[in-house]
């Protein structure tokens, strides 16, 4: 099951990256043709699938934590973030199917900013609560100079993105509230990025293991989104066709990278559960195997 699940998720990352890039290629070659218009949001089905599976994993992971525990709350926030992201992608897909994406670009479609920003808020809450759970064990609390530099860099990006001459997608919405949300999005993303640095320090403190591996993918997905957003608002870069294709592919893949993080975390629960069963069946054999593992690990390390 483990190999099949991970194989499918990694395939999803690659397919999403290629599909994202292909969408941008079709758009740049035939922007006004039927295919060009149709492909405008052509990677949305893949994004929707990614968040639907991520939501499933999040709910299962949430159930693996005791009621009232901070980590359970963190995963509930993560599930809420996945739900709103799913809503956003399904909404955008629906708009395209109804032909509203082009004709009413500045009105109805712009409502996507509501789930988009909500998703970021939930993600920030999740990362904060998760970090606090680790901090209670003394992990992720000793920041290095590199962490401070990263956080400063993310905060420095806010004015850079806000003042960029390249307009954000919904900055001309007919709704004042949506325009406000769009202008607030760099701040939300910066908060998420700063909290991601907290979690980066935590994963470094944890050391190599299944748990830190799953968190690494979540961090990587945040980093990829931030990187793509930066490319999008940088005037000299945003018009370069190859960078455009690469950034669209990267953005599409980032959703599946996030899903990989959820998948690895869910498989950690599954493998723990399997090990519990094995201990129930034959504790002696497991302990002998554990002794053997200790020996092997030590041999590899030395």
């Amino acid at each position, binding site marked *: 099951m483990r190999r099949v699940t991970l194989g499918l998720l990694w395939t999803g990352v690659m397919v999403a990256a290629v599909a994202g890039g292909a969408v941008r290629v079709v758009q740049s070659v035939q922007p006004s043709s039927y295919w060009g218009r149709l492909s405008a949001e052509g990677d949305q089905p893949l994004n929707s699938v990614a968040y639907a599976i991520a939501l499933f994993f999040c709910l299962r*992971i949430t159930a693996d*934590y005791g009621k009232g525990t901070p980590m359970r709350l963190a995963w509930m926030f993560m599930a809420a973030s996945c739900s709103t992201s799913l809503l956003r992608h399904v909404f955008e897909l629906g708009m395209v199917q109804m032909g509203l994406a082009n004709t009413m670009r500045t009105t109805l479609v712009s409502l996507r900013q509501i789930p988009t920003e909500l998703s970021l808020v939930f993600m920030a809450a999740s990362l904060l609560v998760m970090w606090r759970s680790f901090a209670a*064990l003394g992990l992720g609390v000793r920041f290095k100079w590199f962490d401070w530099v990263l956080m400063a860099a993310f905060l420095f990006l806010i004015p850079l993105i806000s003042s960029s001459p390249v307009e954000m997608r919904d900055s001309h919405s007919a709704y004042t509230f949506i325009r406000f949300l769009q202008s607030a999005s760099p701040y939300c993303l910066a908060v998420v990025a700063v909290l991601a640095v907290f979690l980066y320090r935590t994963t470094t403190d944890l050391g190599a293991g299944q748990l830190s591996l799953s968190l690494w993918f979540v961090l990587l997905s945040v980093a990829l989104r931030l990187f793509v957003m930066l490319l999008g608002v940088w005037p000299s870069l945003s018009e370069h066709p190859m960078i455009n294709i690469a950034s669209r592919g990267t953005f599409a893949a980032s959703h599946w990278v996030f899903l990989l993080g959820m998948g690895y975390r869910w498989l*950690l629960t599954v493998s723990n559960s399997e090990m519990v069963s094995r201990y129930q069946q034959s504790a002696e054999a*497991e*302990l002998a195997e554990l002794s053997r593992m200790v020996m092997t690990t030590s041999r590899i390390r030395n």
Partner: protein
Amino acid sequence: MEHWISPQQWLDFVDRTLTPSEEARITAHVSQCKDCEVLMCGLMDWHRLLTQETQLLRHSLVYLDVEIDRLLDHTLNRIRPVGMKSHWTWSVLDALVLLRCLMAPISGPSAARAVMAVAFDRSGMTPGRCLNHDQWSQFLSNLSEAFGSICGLEGARLIGHAGRSLSIDYGCY
């Protein structure tokens, strides 16, 4: 030559819990059987080294974060050629080392150390203190809870099961 000594008999022999006649029988066999002599030397070495290293680890508990890795490596380097331990009675420190080795691949080695330190703290365990069954159970409960706080209920159950499966030789650690 026929190797008639069972694993359980070997373990009892090393632990010196056999009857004198049974022990004499095994000694007589070992003196004539080269294979069994090699096996016996290995088992005796394992037992001796683990006892020695347990003494070292007992002192290292006060420097849990820094020293235990070095000492664990040192222990494993010395006992590696000897073999492995499957179902002897475990001293408290043997059990702690083993549980930490179980947690490390899941949570990460530093997290396993942190979780164990929290469990020590909550259980009021200090080096040199003697443990009984209830105190070990209390420690296991705290360890499971701390591990579960980051790795989930299944992780907590795993540590609980593994800890309870170990046959502990209670005493000072």
